[in-house]
């Protein structure tokens, strides 16, 4: 069961120092362009954001002692 990027908006804002839920991402696998807030959020040992069109990984975020280990994929279009 998943929610969406809105659920980790706070964490993402800690990382990017700005809201990114309205930021579009172009998927590296399927080229779909969707807002981060529309991406599927899975909570495993860490947070996994997936493309809502194809399910491929958009980001993996692990809350570590000093902050976050953030692995980002695809092209995120910051304005």
């Amino acid at each position, binding site marked *: *069961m998943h929610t969406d990027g809105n659920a980790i908006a706070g964490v993402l804002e800690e990382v990017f120092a700005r809201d990114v839920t309205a930021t579009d991402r172009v998927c590296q696998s399927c080229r779909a362009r969707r807002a981060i807030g529309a991406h599927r959020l899975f909570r495993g*040992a*860490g947070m*996994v954001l*997936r493309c809502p069109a194809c399910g491929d990984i958009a980001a*993996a975020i*692990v809350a570590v002692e000093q902050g976050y*280990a953030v*692995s980002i994929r695809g092209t995120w279009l910051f304005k």
Partner: protein
Amino acid sequence: MAFTRGFRGRRSDVDPARLPPGQYETKDFPVLSAGPTPHTPLDEWTFTIDGAVGASRRWSWEDFTALPAETLTVDIHCVTKWSKFDTTWTGVPVSALVEGTSPSGEHVVAWSDGGYTTNLPLADVLDGKAWIAHRYGGEPLDPEHGGPARLLVPHLYFWKSAKWVRGLTITEHDEPGFWEGYGYHNHGDPWKEQRYWSD
């Protein structure tokens, strides 16, 4: 502000000796997953031991569930800080599955439906340390908890107990799996609090 009056969280009184450092006991069984729950039909399901082995082996669901299985009760520890005591599983010891394959590598990659992987030393899944579990609490393992079968390695953080496992590939070199590649510790011993890359 020190604390929130009256808030305790979902925890109970514990025997501290059973709790690894930094963990809290829970009576729940949280469902955590890196992706959607796969639903492989049992007549398509297989389990494979392959890779750096003399002879690979593969079982159908029917063959796999006919193998001698053990029932064990263990504590499990998630890197997200919850521990659950006295969980009961039924599964096939990994040693029994690896036997007869003549492994030449010392590492293992467990791989699952949905693309999840995790890596371990081969020694960490032999000698009574790991099972492929297909029952939990006396019932068939629920898909949201990894059914039809998952890897069970209770002495390591539970992300190593790969849900929806379909095989173990023996490797000659250590190959970091999903979470090991994204920030979690390569080994993951909860008693040494090996949570992250920096530990």
